């Protein structure tokens, strides 16, 4: 039995059979072939074909791994409406270089200059005519059609193409100065010749700048200074004309965490002293003294530091973290003055003095012998708490060596080891408790 007889086809129609077989074959094979064939790469729409992720090695120097891209504040987001394949154009056989299209960069002294090529730069090869942007003429072949480069373009759009938005960088930058020193484009922008579309990701990273910009102000003229205002704009709406401008439409300029560990995290209030103690000039790039003094020499309670009914709450914190009080308050003026007015200080004026006892019962607090809960142990634990409320007179009443002083010795461990130096350099506190002729002072002379 033949296939023809099985299918009950007429024996005289082998051509029909072959046609049928071919049709079946086409139906079976072509879709499979289409399914397995790689799609046609869409070049120039992304840094790499098919929008593959750009490997770190192709990002600009200074990029982190993983990388978040350049700062939105410095380089505002772009809206790219062009297809362009840098890798293709920079192939050796075309003989093009960066300068062919971005020649303006070699002459630019300002980051406000536009360094993108005009449409006319494309005309020679694409046979287009961009001389008159109101009536651009397409080229003859496919690469000369508007839609070849201008994304989303339809013939019905006539001469209109989608606007390209590449905001200027919020920086001071002199391309010419860099180019004149033979600093190649890739040194800041990375190997763009290996990429298709150049996006914001190829804009420089500040860390990359520091590869060269690490020189002091006094380094020879023309070398790369690291001072912030070498590159960052001055004149802020917040900090005054000489500070770095920090407020921009796309955000607030803040230091990255790798720069002096100065990331302004939500708890930066707790740890900013670490930065300021090391390099206050770094802070002063953005902040005036007023910014610091509003808290550190403050006369108005900053609620972010002293929340709620802090006036009533502060004793607890003062006993626990006294040195933090000292970072803004002088105890013998700020604290003592208010405590005297409020009547809680031993030295308060009689008319204001509070009749109630502030400290625990005398039997525990001050009666000898010392015992747990005694003020002596509290003073050892946190002497600042005493100083915030008492004048030295209050202490000398009992700790003075002679006369009115009851003679309770308050000196610390090992005091005799250094008292001679202290007495030589400033004998005044010695004489508060000791008579100048006191024999015991001989141990410190």
């Amino acid at each position: 039995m033949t296939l023809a007889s099985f299918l009950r086809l007429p024996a005289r129609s082998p051509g029909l059979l072959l046609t049928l077989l071919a049709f079946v074959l086409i139906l079976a094979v072509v879709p499979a072939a289409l399914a397995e064939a790689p799609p046609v790469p869409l070049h120039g729409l992304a840094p790499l074909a098919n929008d593959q992720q750009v490997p770190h090695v192709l990002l600009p120097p200074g990029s982190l791994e993983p990388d978040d891209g350049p700062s939105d504040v410095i380089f505002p987001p772009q809206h790219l409406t062009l297809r362009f394949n840098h890798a293709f154009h920079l192939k050796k056989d075309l003989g093009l270089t960066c300068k062919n299209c971005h020649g303006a960069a070699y002459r630019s002294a300002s980051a406000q200059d536009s360094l993108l090529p005009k449409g006319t730069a494309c005309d020679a090869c694409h046979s287009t005519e961009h001389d008159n942007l109101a009536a651009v003429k397409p080229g003859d072949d496919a690469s000369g059609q508007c839609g070849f480069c201008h994304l989303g373009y339809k013939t019905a759009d006539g001469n209109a193409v989608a606007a390209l938005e590449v905001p200027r960088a919020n920086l001071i930058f002199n391309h010419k100065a860099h180019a004149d020193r033979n600093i190649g484009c890739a040194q800041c922008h990375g190997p763009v010749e290996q990429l298709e579309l150049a996006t914001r990701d190829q804009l420089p990273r500040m860390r990359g700048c520091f590869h060269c910009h690490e020189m002091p102000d006094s380094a020879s003229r023309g070398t790369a200074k690291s001072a912030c205002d070498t590159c960052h704009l001055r004149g802020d709406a917040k900090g005054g004309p000489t500070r770095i401008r920090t407020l921009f439409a796309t955000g607030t300029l803040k230091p990255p965490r790798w720069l002096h560990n100065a990331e302004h995290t939500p708890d930066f209030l707790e740890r900013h002293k670490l930065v300021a103690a090391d390099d206050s000039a770094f802070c002063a790039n953005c902040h005036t003294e007023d910014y610091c003094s509003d808290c550190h020499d403050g006369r108005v309670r900053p609620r972010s530091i002293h929340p709620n009914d802090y006036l009533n709450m502060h004793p607890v914190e003062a006993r626990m973290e006294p040195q933090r009080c000292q970072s803004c308050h002088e105890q013998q003026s700020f604290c003592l003055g208010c405590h005297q007015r409020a009547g809680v200080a031993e030295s308060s004026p009689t008319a204001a003095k509070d009749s109630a006892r502030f400290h625990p019962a005398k039997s525990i607090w001050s009666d000898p012998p010392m015992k747990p809960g005694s003020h002596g142990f509290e003073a050892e634990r946190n002497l600042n708490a005493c100083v915030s409320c008492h004048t030295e007179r209050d202490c000398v009443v009992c700790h003075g060596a002679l006369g009115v002083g009851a003679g309770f010795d308050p000196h610390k461990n090992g005091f005799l080891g250094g008292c001679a130096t202290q007495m030589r350099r400033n004998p005044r506190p010695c004489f508060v408790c000791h008579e100048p002729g006191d024999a015991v002072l001989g141990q410190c002379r």
Partner: protein
Amino acid sequence: MRRAGAACGLGAFLALLVPSAARAADAEVTADTAAQFYDVRSPTGETVLNRRRLTTTLAISAYDLLEPEVGDPTAPTLSFRARVRYDADFGINGASVDPTNYANFVPGLNQGGVDLMYAYVEGRRFLHGWLGFRLGRQYVTDALGWWSFDGAQVTATTPFFAKAEAYGGYEERGGMPLSTARYESDGVWRGDRSNYDPSLAPAFQPAAMAPAFGVALESTGVTWIHGRLTYRRVYDTGASNVTEFASGTYSPAQYDGARISSEKVGYAMDANLAQLGGVKAGVVYDFYNAEMTNLYATVDAYAGKKVTLSADYDYYVPTYDADSIWNFFAGEPMNDLGLRANVNVTDRLSVSGGGHVRVFNVQTGPLDPGNGSAYSPYTNYAAGQSIYPTNGHPFDEGGNVSARWRTGETLVTLRGSGNWGAEGDRAGADLAAQHVFETRYIASLRTGVWQWNDKLQPDRSTTSFNYVLGVGYRFAPRSQALVEWENDMNGLVGQRFRLMLWVTVAVTK
């Protein structure tokens, strides 16, 4: 002839200061005013202080007094900045500032103090970047703290990644004209007692000029590592009361003469590796007390691009002006150990939190003065009779969490913390939000609940709720008016209200 020479010299000096090619220098005038109205009750409720405070500052600045080369950020610059402050409390009873009213007089209290916060001429990048200077009242901030003096500072920046700084003048001290006590070393109750009877409040010491000088060596240029070594010496001068009981027991006596007020050296540094983390550290040594008074270090580890993990250590010993008796007292060091983390959840939301332990020190046996024997020849009780704590290292513990959500016009922050210890507990949280409508209308809200337990005075423990409502109008980028209404509610004060008015004006040419 001599007068003409002096005039020529003065003219030459002014010519150096004033650029010959006059240019449109930037000038700025800013003013901040805050008025506060609230009452304060003493801890036992007996005394009520009326606070009717007005704090206003006026600042003037002039920049770019020299004509810099266009586009040359390394050109020398000359600027002037000054800010004066008036801080008045109209609620002060007149009797409190009357030295003849012994029953009410509070020494040093000032109804309306005026101080010059800073006023200096600053030059930068002269002599091809080598020379910088400041002349006038100015701040110095470094490992030795935040400090102010009147005088001159000169900085030499070398091309070799180091700069040297020297300064000298007089420390700003309370009781001196146009000055505050904020920047002097603590431990001395000091001020203007020029109109006081010598027997009145002898513990209140007369203020006098305090000569000071300092030097610093600092790295510059390199951005991944930085350090500053700084040394400062301050002198006390003038008479100081040393007999505190002038009213009877002793006759008034004073110590006079130049003497050390403070002498310290400090070093602070930081270093970073962007892919790994960073370290910061600092140390302060007090020459007068001959001991290390502060040592701190923090290590940050960058765990991915959104998370930073940190460990902190802080050692601190209280020290005071060398005129103070408290340097000799047995103030023991404190040690802080902490761990914290920061997570940048999104571009707009960040969360930080951590915990710490603070370890104190107290004696667990008789003190040893250093000669092998226990104190002291005078002590009128035997030290051996004392009952000492069995634990020489009591500690407190605490933690905090902070979160911030920020968009262009809205800022929301949450800040909570808790501290627990033998002397008291404190825990609570504040939520604050501010929104700017149409770039000019400001609305703000802050509310919080806090609980504190005062273990030394249990009757002063309470839970407090508070809210602050604010509305304002921003009539220029840096100029705005704001009204805030604050209401505190707790068992100690019942209801307390506070009204605040803020006006900030900035004019720049």
